[in-house]
C-alpha cells in the first residue's frame, strides 16, 4: 500500500479522504503514480462506476505497471498522459462539456490533486464536493513567497527555490488558489544560518 498518514496540522493544510463511489451522471477521475491504486480500489468497490468514467492517468515514474490494470477496470475513456501539464487541456475540455451531476475523483500526489481541484472549482464545482485520496509520494508543490516561483516535488525542508535561489522553510500553510504550500526564506534574519535539509516526514 502506498498510503501515508499525515500528522495533524494547521487548518490551512488540506486533508484527504478515501475515494467512495457517488451517484452521478458522469465520473471524471484524475490520478498520478500510485494514485492509480486508489482508482483500482474504487473500481473494485463499484465496477459499474467505470462505465461512465473518464480516467486521466499520469504514470509519473511508475512506468506502465498501472496501465493494464486501469484498462481492465474498463473505463469509458482512459487517457494516459506524459505529465499533468500536458493533460490540462483535456481536463478543461472535459469540464467545459460536463453537466451538473459530474463527480470528480482525484488521487495521487498533493501537487496533482491541488492543481486538478483548481480546474474543477474554476469550472464551478464546490471544492468540498470533490473527492481526494492521497497515495504515493509526500513530495510537495511549493510556492516561494518571495519570488512567487513554483518548485515541484519538494522532498526536503529546507529546500532551495528553483527560481530565486533562496533557501526556503517548508510550511503547512497552503494556498488553494496556487495549489501550493508556502515556502519562506529560512535565513532572512541571520543570512547563511541554514539548517541541514531533512527529508519531509522522515
Amino acid at each position, binding site marked *: 500500500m502506498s498510503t501515508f498518514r499525515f500528522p495533524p496540522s494547521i487548518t490551512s493544510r488540506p486533508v484527504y479522504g478515501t475515494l467512495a463511489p457517488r*451517484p452521478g*451522471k458522469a465520473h471524471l477521475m484524475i490520478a498520478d503514480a500510485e494514485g492509480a491504486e486508489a482508482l483500482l480500489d474504487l473500481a473494485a468497490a463499484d465496477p459499474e462506476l467505470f462505465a461512465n468514467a473518464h480516467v486521466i492517468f499520469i504514470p509519473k515514474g511508475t512506468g506502465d505497471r498501472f496501465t493494464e490494470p486501469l484498462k481492465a477496470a474498463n473505463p469509458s475513456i482512459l487517457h494516459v498522459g506524459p505529465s499533468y501539464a500536458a493533460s490540462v487541456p483535456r481536463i478543461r475540455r472535459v*469540464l467545459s462539456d460536463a*453537466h*451538473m451531476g*459530474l463527480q470528480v475523483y482525484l488521487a495521487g500526489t498533493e501537487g496533482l490533486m491541488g492543481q486538478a481541484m483548481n480546474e474543477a472549482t474554476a*469550472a*464551478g464545482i*464546490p471544492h*468540498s464536493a470533490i473527492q481526494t485520496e492521497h497515495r504515493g509520494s509526500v513530495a510537495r508543490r511549493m510556492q516561494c513567497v518571495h519570488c512567487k516561483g513554483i518548485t515541484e516535488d519538494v522532498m526536503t525542508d529546507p529546500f532551495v527555490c528553483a527560481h530565486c535561489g533562496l533557501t526556503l522553510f517548508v510550511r503547512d500553510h497552503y494556498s488553494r488558489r496556487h495549489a501550493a504550500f508556502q515556502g519562506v526564506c529560512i535565513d532572512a534574519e541571520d543570512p547563511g544560518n541554514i539548517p541541514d535539509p531533512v527529508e519531509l516526514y522522515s
Partner: protein
Amino acid sequence: MSAGTEKIDVTVTDIVKLNDLVTRFKFERSDGGQLPTFSGGAHTVVEMQDDGITRLNPYSLMSDPMDQSAYTISVRRDDEGRGGSLFMHNRVKTGDRMVISYPVNLFSLDLRARKHLMIAGGIGITPFLAQIKQLDRLSGRFELHYACRSAALGSYVDELTANHPNAVHVYYDDQKQAIDLQRLLTGQPLGTHVYVCGPKGMIEWVRKTSAALGWPEEAVHYEEFLAPQSGKPFQVRLAKSGITVDVGEHESLLEAIERAGIDAPYLCRGGACGQCETDVIESDGTFVHRDHWLEDEDRASGCKIMPCVSRFEGRTLVLDR
C-alpha cells in the same frame, strides 16, 4: 439577545390585492428616512399587535434589494393558520404604523454560481422576485421554473413573463402542467446552483432528485418557513430567569418565553436558522421537534430544543434560559 433583529418603525403605504389568496403590502419608514439595502432572498419579521397577542411572522422581501424607499412583501392568506396572515389580510390598513425587523437572509444567492436555477411553488415565488432583480443588476444568468395552482392564482406571472420571456417558465397545476425535474436537473451546465422555495413536498422532491443525480449539496439551496403549529399546552421552567411559563395551545414556546418578558434569541422564527437553539436542563416527557436545524443525535439526546417551532408533551421541562 435577538441578534440581527434590530427594529424599524414603518408605515403601510400601499395594499394591493393580487388574487383570492395573496395581498401585497408596501412599507416605508415612518420617519421618512431610507431603509437598508438587502440581498435577494432576505426576509423581515413583521410584528403584529393582535388584541394583546404579539405575532412575529417572517415574510420574504420581494422588492428591489437596492430600493431603499420601500419594502414590499406578499402575504398568502392561510385560513387554517394561527392567524398572522389573517391579521395582515383583514386588519392591516393603509396608513397603519407597524414594526418590522432589519432584513435577515437565510436564502441568499451563491454568487460563485455560473447559473442560478430557481424552482418556486406558489407563494414561494416571493424571495425569487428580489433575487431576480438583484441578478438583473449583476447580469447574472438565471432560469425560473414556477409552479402555481391556476392562472388566477399565479401571483406575478404576468410581470415575470413580460420582463424575462426567455428565462421564466410557468406551470399550472389545473392544466396538468408539471416541472420535468429529472430532465431539468440533468441538462444543467457545471457550476449551476439550484434554489427551491415552496411547499415542503416540493423542497424534498428537489433535494432528493438532485442528490440522486449527483448534485453536490453545496449547490442545492432551499427555504421553507415553518409556521409554529398548535399543540397541547405545557409548562416550562426557565432556570436562568427563575420563572415558570405556561405555553398555550396556540402559541409557540418562543412566543411564551417572550410574553414572560425574556429576550430570547431568534432570527427566522421558522425552524431554519438555528439562532434560538436552547439547552434542555431537565425533561420528563416527549419532545415534538419540528425544526430543520437539529441533527438526529441532538434530538435523540433530549438536550436541545428549537423553541420557535418545537413543542413538548409531558410533566417537566426545564430550559437553560
